[in-house]
């Protein structure tokens, strides 16, 4: 299982903030995982098709192509605005 997290405007757009999914056997990086989620429907496709979306694996920001393994926590979110 992989834990998926979505925050702020992405959480609202997708209607989910936290889910567990079984990772398909042929998906082993965040780019493939993002593409697989985008195939869910047009809303998912549009929301994650944004170069400003950040991806964190196990709570650390990563670059495209970063590996994903069973047990990981992967998060998608917009640029941060705290402080």
């Amino acid at each position, binding site marked *: 299982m992989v834990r998926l*997290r979505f*925050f*702020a*405007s992405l*959480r609202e757009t997708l209607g989910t903030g936290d889910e567990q999914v079984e990772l398909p056997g042929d998906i082993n990086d965040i780019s493939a995982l993002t593409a697989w989620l985008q195939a869910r429907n047009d809303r998912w496709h549009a929301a994650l098709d944004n170069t*400003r979306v*950040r991806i*964190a694996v196990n*709570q*650390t*920001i*990563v*670059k495209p192509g970063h590996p994903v393994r069973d047990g990981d926590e992967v*998060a998608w*979110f*917009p*640029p*941060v*605005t*705290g*402080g």
Partner: protein
Amino acid sequence: MIRVQEQDFDPGSELELLRDHCAGRAGAVVSFTGLVRDLNEGDAIAQLTLEHYPGMTEKALAQIEAHAIEHWNLVAAAIIHRIGPLAPNDRIVFVAAASAHRKDAFSACEYMIDSLKTEAPFWKQEDTPGGKRWVTAVDEPISS
């Protein structure tokens, strides 16, 4: 010292804790307090709501603080950030750096709040007369 909390904090108490901790070794304490402004991009702000990524937030803040302490040789540092709903003039964030010399304290404090604004996973939603809206990032995007 890192804290993420819903409740308000008291800058005076935090400054006093830092001073006690320094015990004569620090000559300079610089603090930054962020407040909710009642106007943003021309619209009145009735409420501001802070969302964050629990776990990752604390990791990001601890990294920022540790880097500041090491790079500027601080005697002590603090980062406190509130989450949840806030009203105009409420405190949002507190950052402080204590150092032997004032240039280091200023540089470290400014570094910590600048880094927090681009690297720590917090998001602001504003409640305006036209409805709720997410604040758009104006600083540099978060980096890997």
